[in-house]
């Protein structure tokens, strides 16, 4: 069995160490992919986080570190790593905006397609999730998968082994909490 698949199976059986192991394995990989993407010659406006996770997935598949039947669970466990990456980057962007490379930013203001509001939203969602985690860890997982990893409802249903309907309902519930928290 391939190493990542092994971790996924253990994680599914509730092995906390394995969950951490997955995070440790995925975080640097995703981060690297995310950053490499930006050193490209052409603008790439429609790249979502989904593509990053997909890319990471295919990479691991290609190197035989992951079995085909682990796809959905892989996505599920990668989602929290994805969240960390996006939050980290949003934080550093926000920091840059307030100091550091401020001059440069000002000069090219119009070209920054990432906006302060976008970063703030990400950071707020992140904080709200910390709170939701106190109530219902499952909803946190769902938001990570749905929002940060861009998984579809059927994919999430498959990963969590619940029906699509449950996913849709939980997502509604999570959004109510998020909307409340973000107010």
């Amino acid at each position, binding site marked *: 069995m391939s190493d990542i698949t092994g971790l996924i199976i253990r994680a599914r059986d509730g092995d906390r160490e394995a969950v951490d192991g997955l995070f440790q394995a995925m975080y640097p990989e995703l981060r690297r992919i*995310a*950053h*490499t993407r*930006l050193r*490209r*010659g*052409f*603008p*790439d*406006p*429609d*790249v*979502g*986080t*989904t*593509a990053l996770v*997909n*890319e990471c*997935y*295919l*990479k691991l*598949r*290609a*190197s*035989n570190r992951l079995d*085909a*039947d682990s*796809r*959905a669970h892989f996505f599920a466990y990668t989602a929290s790593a994805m969240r960390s990456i996006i939050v980290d*980057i*949003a934080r*550093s*962007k926000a920091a840059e905006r307030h100091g550091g490379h401020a001059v440069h930013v000002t000069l*090219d203001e119009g*070209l*920054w*397609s*990432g906006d302060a509001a*976008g970063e703030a*939203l990400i950071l*707020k969602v992140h*904080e*709200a999730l910390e*709170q939701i985690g106190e*109530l*219902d860890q499952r909803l946190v997982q769902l*938001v990570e998968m749905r929002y*940060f*990893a861009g998984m579809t409802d*059927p*994919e999430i249903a*498959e990963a969590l082994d619940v029906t699509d309907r449950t996913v849709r*309902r939980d997502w*509604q*519930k999570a*959004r*109510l*909490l998020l*909307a*409340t928290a973000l107010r």
Partner: protein
Amino acid sequence: MADLKFLASEWPTISRRLDEALLLTAADRDTWLESLQETESIKLKLRGLLAESTRAETRDFLDAPPSLTLGFFEGSPPVADADAPRAGMLIGPYRLLAELGVGGMGSVWLAERADGGLKREVALKLPRVNWSQGLAERMRRERDILASLDHPNIARIYEAGLDAQGRPYLALEYVEGVPIDVYCMQRALDINERLKLLRQVARAVAHAHARLVVHRDLKPANILVTADGQVRLLDFGIAKLMEGELTQETQLTQVAGRALTLDYASPEQIRGEPIGTASDVYSLGVVAYELLAEAKPYQLKRQSAAALEEAIANVDVRLASVATENAVARKALTGDLDAILNKSLKKNVTERYSTVDAFAQDIERHLAHLPVQAQPDALGYRARKFVRRHTLVIAAATVVSASLIGGLSAALWQRQAARAQAARAEQVKDFVVSVLGDANTDSGANQTTTAADLLKAARQRLAADLTRQPDLAVELMTTVANSMIGQGLYVEAAALIQEAVNIANQKLGPQHELTVRAQALQGAALSRTGRSKEAITLLTSAIDSARRAGDSHTVVAGLGWLTVAQMNDGVAAAACVETARLAVAALSTPARTGDALGARDVSQAHLALANALIYAEQPGAAAAAERALAAGREIYGQADSQSMLIVRTLLARALVMEGQLDAALREADRLIPSAVALLGPQHPAVADVAALVGNTRLDAGNVTGAINAFEQAKAIRDAVTGSEGSYDQGSIRWLLATAHSDARHPEIALPLFDETIRLFSSSLGADHLVTMRARSVRAEQLIEAGKLIDAEAAFEQLSHVPWTGLPRAGHTMRRAALRSAQGRHGEALALAEEAITLMSASTNTLFRAKGLTTLGIVRLDAGQPQAALASLREADAIYARSELGISPRRADLLVALGRTQTQLADLNAAAASLKSAERAWQVFDAKNRHTGLAKLFLADALWAQGDKVAAQGMLNDAEAVLVASAVAADRTLLQSMRQKFATQ
């Protein structure tokens, strides 16, 4: 930001109630809240949460994932929009006119030349790539490969280059057309019209495959149909081109970009395995399925990429006739088309159509209402199911494979050491020294440490020491595996190389030079162990990669191996020759003197060519073998080596084909002892040499010598481990049986043919055309043994075989022989005339001579002695050129000739022919019934000449032999001759 702590204490209840509320419409929720049996605190909190629902649900609140726009990340400053392609912009010599499309890979523009060059509109592809060193060079090479595709149904690639800013572009033929699925739908084409379009597609893909270009991304969007109904394939090989140029991340994104539409990806693509022509067969199968059934091949419980991926990898497709919702289509699809689609969509490459051409042929057969070749599989209907055409000498030709692989490849890898870093070379040396050191210790107890033992020891050490760097490990494993092949340790080699390929793929990546080379060697090893289809896939893929990387040595070696793998797989001879010619064409500039590596390539390519030409019975084999020999001598000098022995053996065989008997046979006599001296008596390569020498002798009429050589080869092949029930064992029995048939010993030949058929059935399949041919030839031996009823039954069983080409000619001629033996001369004559017409296409003169002999006998028995004389004389002229003495087959021909001359009252000539025949038979095998028959007809000629005493004596001699004959007709003949002598 609000705090959610206020929900904590009552969350389980709130959560449950929310579930209920969310099932209701917003309007109903107020009423529901009112009637709720909960504390006011809870109600209040619920009301508060639900109040957010307008915001949370009606707007796209957090619905899309955060966008990773450029400016969002740290890193390089964003690229100005000014650089984005737009109308009017100049890219290289082209001016952009209008955007045709944009996708994950980049954008496509309608463009025209702006530099006064040829005014034509092109589709200009602007891929998103990273600039990297050597990009321009690789683009140029790529363009050269793709430009070799010249087919009316393939959109041309005009140019690939970089503009002044280093942005790559590809100029392609601009095709005005619509995707094939849209075209079919718009025009409401019926099944046959759709099949005809698919046939066009398949023919075009086959054209590219013959040039070793794999499409990799066949889908309706890439298959356009023009207004006049002509198919145009777009983007041939572009997927691969992009793969080579894009960063690995981007490359994966492209797949990721399509992750939700993997519909046309093959199982091996999903698994991330090497992609060969078989992958295109699969993708084309999916396209065909969708066009014909108007349904998807997989029924998914859940429409997700994961489910589709899972289905492609593991779930068998539903029958198209089941999937379609169109009653007319269902009827048309049931049967052949189900079988064709099923065969093209097999998970396992080896079960799929071996070529796109075979797929196209089946479509053609279906359109022509002929039985298709697709296996019936679990379809539950009885399909006519025969595969591929073969030339006559497959058995003979394939014996070369072992040594082609073992011998010439051996040195190829050595160059790695020369090129490797000094440190790496040092480590390789250390490793070798350590293995030899161990062996020396061993040799205290056992003085006979062989090369094979050393290799096994090396393999042990490799397994024990997994700490080395991956490139070194792969290199060592490849080298050891290659040497194992040289030593005939095929099974061990195959296992080790598999391991090397796995490590290489994981640690070095699929495009790494060492990975590609290991993959090529794995192909060679698989071909050797009879897994030729897998070998072809691996080799095609490796050659492709090597070609793109500019590694011409691996390209040449790979094409040489591919030639052999194709021969082993029964690919049409002309295609094998084509592959070998590609190997010769791939040779870089004329090798300099003293360039061992170049010389090796030259030798290897020409060896492959000689082999293929012999297989195809085309002229030029001797010249190619001479060239291989000369190049080999530059490396090895005059000393023997395994590869040089094989080259010499092929040369001898080619020389026999070209009529240079003396030299060839003398050389053949030297070859087996040389091979034994060099390699030891049990080496598989000795079997190959012996089999080829046997063949050479058989062609030259030296039946006894041939039998000896074949026996020796058979003993070695049977002893080689790992080849139980192998094709090799079958083919050597075929050859031995053929030699015994030539010696007119059906009682020995028949059991050998039985074994051949059993071995071919298990290795090739019972329905394989080669197996069928073995059965046809066996049936002929039943005639020889006088078992006419059995022979009749055997031929009856073969009557449904869709024979084509030379096998058809041979089978028809054998049926003629049966009818002749049954005394049904009219039918025999019709069949024999048909057969000889079919043979006129063959360059194999010995095959023709045999046919002419049968035709002559049939004509004589049908009362056409003049016509008989003509064919028999033509046959004799052929044998006179190919034989030094008089072989049994030629003696039989002379008997027929003598009988004809007797009938035509050319008595002196008759007596001369029959005396030669009688003497030859007497020496060869005095007790054979054919010796008796020669004597009998000689007696008749002598009688006609008036020498009654001699005639009577000869008849007595004939009787002494023929009383023991198993053939009833022989004794009838004897009886009538006795009566004739008594009454006259």
